[in-house]
């Protein structure tokens, strides 16, 4: 095995490099983590429009705050290694020391990464099981809101190529093409599709749930104050997928009640001829072309 007595680089074998990397990494982390948490964090999606959306912002901030020192460790190390260990005499081929590994470094690396990973998985699971985080949970949700939150406003989201419509079973089964929601209320979305797979993505609400034909996909959200939100289809559903979007509003409760009442009256004739309200629908297959 080659010794480290290589003249100009004989100073390399001390712990100096380790110390330098650790110091640089600590400085970089001390600068970046506060920036991530207090400057970037509040701007992370999807905003603070609803309880679930705020929860996602918190989660994104936590993930980013943990990821920052990890990424910095690799980046600082890489930059330092390339600078400190670059070949200064490329004319001659000289080998580096025959280091085969270092079991204590390997051990502590494994411990550190395992701790981080288990924390992330545990944290994510706890957060998800708390309120469902606005995601579609299928017909039998595992994260249901506490009974104290009262009865939810139920909105059935019906996706088809290429539009969303909304059906309100608590308001006589009226079907609307616009969506308004009351403020400070628990809302239960029941998402289904008439043809292919779509995905109901109400960005500012922090809600995303795939719309499958024949499936009742449930997502909960608790609204806060008034809000305008975008609804987009997030699953490729055919030619006009890109055009499948609209907007909705979260409005004060009184305004919501008057809106849904007027919708009910205006659409009374149509509601009568609609299929009765159901969790899912099986229309005649329409060949609208993919």
């Amino acid at each position, binding site marked *: 095995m080659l010794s480290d007595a290589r003249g100009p680089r004989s100073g390399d074998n001390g712990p100096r490099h380790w110390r330098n990397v650790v110091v640089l990494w600590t400085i970089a982390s001390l600068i970046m983590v506060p920036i991530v948490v207090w400057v970037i964090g509040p701007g992370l999606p999807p905003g603070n429009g609803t309880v679930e959306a705020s929860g996602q912002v918190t989660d994104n901030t936590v993930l980013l705050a943990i990821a920052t020192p*990890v990424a910095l460790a690799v980046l600082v190390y890489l930059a330092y*290694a390339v600078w400190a260990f670059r070949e200064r005499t490329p004319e001659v081929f000289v080998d*580096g020391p025959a*280091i085969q590994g270092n079991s204590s470094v390997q051990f502590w690396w494994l411990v550190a990464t395992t701790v981080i990973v288990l924390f992330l998985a545990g944290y994510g699971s706890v957060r998800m099981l708390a309120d469902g985080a606005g995601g579609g949970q*299928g017909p039998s949700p595992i994260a249901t809101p506490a009974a104290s939150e009262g009865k939810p406003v139920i909105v059935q989201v019906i996706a088809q190529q290429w539009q969303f419509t909304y059906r309100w079973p608590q308001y006589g089964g009226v079907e609307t093409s616009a969506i308004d929601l009351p403020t400070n209320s628990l809302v239960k979305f029941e998402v289904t599709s008439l043809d292919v797979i779509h995905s109901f993505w109400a960005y500012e609400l922090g809600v995303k749930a795939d719309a499958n034909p024949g499936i009742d996909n449930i997502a909960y959200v608790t609204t806060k104050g008034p809000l305008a939100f975008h609804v987009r289809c997030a699953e*490729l*559903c055919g030619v006009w997928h890109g055009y499948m979007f609209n907007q909705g509003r979260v409005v004060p409760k009184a305004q919501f009640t008057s809106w849904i009442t007027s919708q009910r009256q205006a659409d009374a004739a149509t509601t009568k001829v609609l299929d009765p309200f159901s969790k899912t629908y099986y229309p005649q297959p329409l060949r609208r072309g*993919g």
Partner: protein
Amino acid sequence: MTAIAVSVPAHRRTGWQKLIGFNMLTGILLGIGGWFLGQLIGDHITGQNIAYYSTEAGQNDIAILLGYFLGVVGFLVGMGFANYPVKRLLGYPPALAERESEAGGLFRYFTLSTDHKVVAKQYMAGIGVFFFVAGLNAMLIRTELLQPNVHVFGANQYLTLVGMHGSMMLGTMTSGLLGPFATFLVPLMIGSRRMAFSRLSSFAFWLLMAGEIILLTTVFFGGFQTGWTGYQPLASQGTAGYDAYIGFFALVGLSMTLFGFNLVVTITTMRAPGMTWSRLPIFVWSAYATAWLMMLAAPMLIAALLMAAMDRTIQTSFFSPGNGGSGYLFQNLFWVFGHPEVYILALPGMGIVLEIMVVFSRKPLWGYRLAVAGMLGIAFLSWFVWQHHLFVSGIDADLRPFYMLSTELISLPTGFIFLCAMGTLWRGRIRLTVPMLFCLGWMFNFLWGGISGVFNSDVPSDVTTHGSYFVMAHFHYTIMGGLIFGFFAAIYYWVPKMYGVKLNERLGKIHFWTLIIAFNSTFAPLFALGFMGMPRRVVTYNPAWQGLNDWVTVSAYVIGLSMLVFLFNVIWSLAFKREPAGANPWNSKSTEWQLPTPVPVHDFEEIPTFSADPYPYGVEPAPVAASMRTAVREEV
């Protein structure tokens, strides 16, 4: 340099006479014949009931799929793949030395060759062509996205471009690293003279090429609108262009299965004396781990596509909700294949990066066992994560914490690979050659791919990122930033051995720097676009996002330019300059570089005996393979 020319054909043909016989020309002619035969039979089967069997008026899906099938059969027969079995069946002795010689020059690259080095170069050229075609699709996609509304292509052409870009990249690049490099290097590295099944190597390659051509034919049938994932039931209502998708991915799947099988058997059984498992070069380990995934995952895809084909033709209802089928079935089958698939793309890159970093740090691989454990760990865990693609799909949610955990666990073995790469740099003598730059670029890009993956694996965060540009940016960082950077590292590093010619260093450095800057400038803003709410695969978007999209498009053009620099480098260096590389330009201590350049037809004069670790840096003298090194020294 001694070329051991064995079994030179007794009657050497010249000029046009070469074209007669079993080769690509015959294959193409018989393939076209097979297509028309399939049409004929298909029309006969459906007869007057064509409307019942077709997804679109006037399109006969049975005839199209039969046409593809018989076309491929005709092509393979024309290539000569039926010769051996037919001869055996008829009782004739098989011709074992099929075209395994240097006779024939360039022409042998258009035939069935059983020389693994020829097959590797065939892979290199074939994959190169379709890599550029798929890359061109990406340029067209970005051109359309210059404006928030449709302005160059219609929505249908746009989605077809998206689907073709995705399918062709994924389908081609699954063999993109192992095809050229494992086929060439694994036998050399383990001290074998060939792959375990030489004819199968060639078969897997030509199947892939047949598949690529089939995918291109989709433009004659209205394209397909499903993206590379081909979700049902959208696919069942798609135009006949989707039949091309089925044909393409089924052939890619078959090609992968056979290739993986071939590699597993080769590495398991063909190792030279002394080449124990703990002496395998790390690239061979990565090929081994990948090969298991290829062999076991791809059949799942073939099964799913067969069911899709039956749904479209003979009106079964595997994926038809309301008739007893389920779209979830396709999503599950597809991702049980699809998630190992992304590691099929990533793992060989990891092997290549570690293999090359060793040479240009001039140190042994740091933590060899840890790196092996990392690769096998990734391969194993990749089977248990697929439902993270379906977090908001409405599949019963009980297993979500499990899939979150398993997905995040996979960052442990990935971390091993990073640690080994970082440890290898430690106190090394780092030479920033072009391959080494691409390896460092790989580490930089894959780091962001991994970090962003944590957001996708976390359910609350995934509610926003799923189906958005964030996911798109994530997998481009892992696949393009990982696989493609590994691909170029391998090209710059091994082309001197494969082709005996050096690639221009200065052009290589220009290529690297423009690529890594343009790559990050293209894909980093896509994270932001995803966070702002831009869904994938849309032809229109919120006008507020136009500035960022234009920035991305211009950066993508720069990626295109850097690829042109590379193409120029390849053509200039290989066709015009032809600066001989010598046997070992990098002064590497790996086995393959101890062989003469070009590598003789039968690789080794005698099978070498291995007696030491694969990376004898910093140890004197370097004990690679005693017998082989003597042979080389005598020649020098």
